[in-house]
Structure formats: C-alpha cells, structure tokens
C-alpha cells in the first residue's frame, strides 16, 4: 500500500461541510430543546390570558374567597373556587391515606427485605399498575369499588369521594413505592453494611438508618404523589360526580377542579361565555397547585441528594 492513511485523510476531509454541520446542529438542537420551554410558556400564557378575561367578568375576590360554585345559575352565577378545591382535597386526602402507608411499606420491603428474585418480579408488576390508563381505574372505581363499598356502607351514594379517592390512591401507589425505593436503594450499601455489622436486624437497619437517610427522597415521592392525585381527571370524572360542595361529606357526589374542566369541555358551555373562561381560571388554579407540589418535591429530592 503506497499512500499513507494520513494522506488519504488529508485529501478526503471535506472540512467545510463538516464545519457547517458542526455549527448548525447545536443551533437546531437548541431550537428543539426550546420547545419544552415554549410549551410551559404556552400553558402559562394560555391560562393567564383567558383567566384575565374571566376576571373582567367575575371579581377576583369572589373567585378566591367564594365558597359557592354555581356557574350554571339562571339568576346569579357564582364562581367561588373553594367547593372545587375542597372536592380536590377530599380525593387527594383519601388517596394519600391509602397510598402512603402501602407505597412506603412496599418500598421498604423491596429495598430492604426482598430477594433479587422477588424484586425482579414485583417491580415490573408495579410498573404495570403504574401503566394502567386512568380511564380503566375510573371504570373500576365506578363499576366495582363503589358497589362493594355500598354493600358495606349503604349510605354511600353512587357518586362519592371515597371510592375514587381510594382508587386514585391505588393509582399512585406504584409511583410512591418506586420513587421511595429509588431513594432508599441509593443509600450506599456500605452504610447498610455498617449497621448490619453492628448486629442490627433488618428492621433496625431500615427504620433507623435507611429510612432516615432517604427521608427527603421519600417525602419528595409523597409530594409528587399528591401532585398526581390533585391533577387526576378521569377517575373523578367517572366516579366522583359533579356537585361542587363546600362541606365535609365524603359519601355524596362532589366535584374536583379537573372534573369541572372535563364537564364543561364536554359541552356545557360555548366558546366565549363566562363558563368557558371559568375552565381556564380553574385550570390555572390547578396548575398553581401542582406546580407548588412539583417545586416542593424537587426541592426535597435535591436536599436529599446532597446528604452523603
């Protein structure tokens, strides 16, 4: 072979086109990456602009202090957001009561007790649970959980807060379990070994070492679970009813922020009416709630990462 590879390289290198590509690509990719930012801006602007229109028709103070949500009234429509918030909180509260103990227990079991084989089976199954579409959960709540509950507690109505609350809880179990498990299994093995080498039982290791070390990660998972529960739509649309109520009753029909948006979207109001704008105001409130949760969760898990 006569010519050297370096000579061939020197000849064949089309440096100009290479340079242009190298310059162009980062710019293109930057544009693509900005789509996610634009999406956020789009969401915020959409919500804000339509919400402002809403507030030109309904006083801001009525909205945030009002305890009556009566958008369809003939005489005097009232838009006090609290009944929808209360409905949302009822669902979220029940969901958390169901999901936190089970989710965290499952996380402890998986990270501290389960053998690799068990983990290898259980984790994908939990993933399946996490992948079940919420419409399916909604159907399950309406056609199974509610009738079962009614057979024990006849005072429970067909549309109520308990059944969808429980099912939303079931829905977020995998999320809490897997995020908590991540937090716990990222506690270095050496720390766990240190505790075991002092004669600790597995429970002592879990309870006195792993859980405290992973605590902020665990809290972050719960907060994210909260955020998911607040934003959950189909389960409540199907099974919780559509009666915005400002009270403490869990057995009867309620309405959440998400379910109201769906109700109106299904056709209760035409474009341009106050009711139409009200879904943006509700959507914006919902957005603020979940955003606060997400930021809190991000903060918690960051704290946790710094610890060791």
């Amino acid at each position, binding site marked *: 072979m006569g010519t050297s590879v370096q000579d061939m390289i020197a000849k064949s290198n089309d440096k100009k086109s290479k340079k242009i590509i190298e310059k162009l690509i980062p710019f293109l990719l930057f544009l693509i990456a900005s789509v996610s930012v634009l999406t956020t801006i789009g969401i915020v602007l959409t919500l804000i602009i339509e919400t402002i229109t809403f507030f030109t028709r309904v006083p801001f103070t009525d909205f945030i202090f009002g305890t009556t949500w009566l958008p369809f009234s003939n005489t005097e429509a009232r838009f006090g957001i609290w009944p929808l918030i209360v409905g949302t909180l009822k669902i979220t509260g029940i969901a958390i009561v169901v999901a936190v103990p089970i989710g965290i227990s499952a996380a402890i079991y998986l990270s501290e007790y389960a053998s690799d084989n068990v983990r290898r089976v259980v984790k994908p199954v939990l993933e399946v649970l996490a992948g079940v579409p919420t419409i399916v959960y909604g*159907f399950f709540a309406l056609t199974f959980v509610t009738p079962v509950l009614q057979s024990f507690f006849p005072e429970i109505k067909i549309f109520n807060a308990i059944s969808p609350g429980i099912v939303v809880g079931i829905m977020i179990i995998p999320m809490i379990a897997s995020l908590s498990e991540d937090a716990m299994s990222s506690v270095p093995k050496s720390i766990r070994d240190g505790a075991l080498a002092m004669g600790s039982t597995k429970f002592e290791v879990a309870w006195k070492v792993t859980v405290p070390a992973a605590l902020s990660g665990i809290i972050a998972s719960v907060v994210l679970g909260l955020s998911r529960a607040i934003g959950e739509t189909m389960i409540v649309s199907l099974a919780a009813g559509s009666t915005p109520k400002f009270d403490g009753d869990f057995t009867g029909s309620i309405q959440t922020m998400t379910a109201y948006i769906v109700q109106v979207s299904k056709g209760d109001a035409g474009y341009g009416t106050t009711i139409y704008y009200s879904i943006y105001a509700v959507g914006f409130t919902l957005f603020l709630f979940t955003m606060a949760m997400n930021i809190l969760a991000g903060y918690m898990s960051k704290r946790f990462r710094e610890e060791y």
Partner: protein
Amino acid sequence: MRYIEQEKVVRRMNGRMIVNRIFQGFFMFATALALLALVILLYRIVSQGAGHLSLDFLTNFASRFPDQAGIKAALVGSIWLMAVVAPTSMILGVGSALYLEEYAKKGRITSFIQMNIANLAGVPSVVFGLLGLTIFVRALALGNSILAAGFTMSLLILPVIIVASQEAIRSVPGELRDASYGMGATKWQTIVRIILPAAIAGILTGSILALSRAIGETAPLIVVGIPVIIQFLPVGVMDTFTALPMQIYDWSSRPQAEFQTVAAAGIIVLMVVLLFMNSIAVFIRNKFDKSY
C-alpha cells in the same frame, strides 16, 4: 465499668427478632395488597369483558345496540394518533436530550430548561388539553383533527421522553466518547456514530413507555373535543377521529348494563395494545443489553 451486658443483649435479641419479623410481615402484606389490587382490577375487567370480545368487536363501528358495538374506529384512530405522536415526540425529545446532554453549557439556562422539563412532567394532562384546545384547535385552526390531538399528546409526553433519552445518553460510558474524540472525530460524528447507537435501546424503551401513556390518556382528548359518534375511518391527519380511551369513556358512562360489558371489552383491547407495546420495550431492552 461495662455498659453493654452480653446477657442483656442476648435476652433482648429475641424481642428484636420478633419486631423484625412482624414488620417484615407487614411490609410484605402491604406489597401484596398493591399487587392484589392489580389482580382484582384485571380479573374484574377480563371476566366482565371477555364475553363480548370477538372478531366482530374489532371490525365493527360503534353502535347504539350493545351487541353490535365494535371498536374499529377507535382502534384505528388510536393508531393514527400514535403515527403523529411517535415521530413528533421522539424528534423533539431526543433532540432536546442531545442538546442538554451534549451541547448545552452547564449554566443557568440549562438548569432552567432542566427544571422546566421536570415541572412540565408534573402538569396535569387536563391542563395540556386546555393548551391544545387554545393553541392547536383554535389558534392554529387545526380543529379536532388527528394532528391537533397528536401535537397535544406529543407535548404531554415530551418531558418523559426527554428524561428517558437523557438518562440513556448519560449512561453511555464517557470512555467511548473519549475514544471517539481521541481519534479526531467531531462532536456530531461522535453523537451519530457512537452515542446514539449506544443509547438507542434506552431511548426506545423510554419512548415506548411514554407512548403507551399517550395511548391511554383521555382527559386531553375530551378537552380538545374529540367526538365519539363516528362511523368512518380517518384517511389523513387532518381528519376527525376517535380514540380507544374516548370510546371506552363513552361506553362506560352509558347507563345500560350491557354497555358496561362493551366498555370492559374495550378496556381489554386497550390493555392488549399496551401489553404489546410494553413487550416491545422489554424486548428491545433485553436485546440491546450492552456489555460495556
């Protein structure tokens, strides 16, 4: 003096072991409970809907007669939807991930984008529906077409795909990058020839899981205004359509008990589609399992 008395230690040991056992049992029970929920859910739906499953169910349009109701329009509609969502979300997702992992300087802008993505992932899907309604359906006048719904869904799952792709790209060992640069390769050559091939399994796995979320999402479709009474198949992306979860929602909210059965059958179809997509993901994950 000695503080730790061995006899006491031995005596307490039994109690500690029992506490350990009890809690182990409790944790196991809780885990089993979560799994049990899944089993009940699946059993319920299969036992309710299996009877309605037949070839006709797949090839019929929806009908006001429960026994003739089929899922054809919704199934085909969902496939159309995926045909829009998959390329859109993957180009955007992988592109963003490449930018963030390979090009962006670690600084305020990057961490802002990163934080933004994390927050976007937590925005409820119904809010994405409002975005789609305002921007795609109304402002861009796409109506309730496949394209409008597809773009909405793409944005919805974008954060998931970005994060999965970032993780896949990040898990490509730095040594491979170094080796490529060390041979005089440019950045883009390194990305195309080394990084993407090595990360592709992770990217695909993450993307398929994200797509299977998109296929089951209902709320954005409702808000965007997808109809259900549809007796035809779409032929282009600007056509109206209906999708599996919409059809299931419609059936499950009908009062006649027979339609509950139809809804359950629809759910089985949806779950089979999801199972199929997940098995592809698992297959890819196993097939491309890298040995570096």
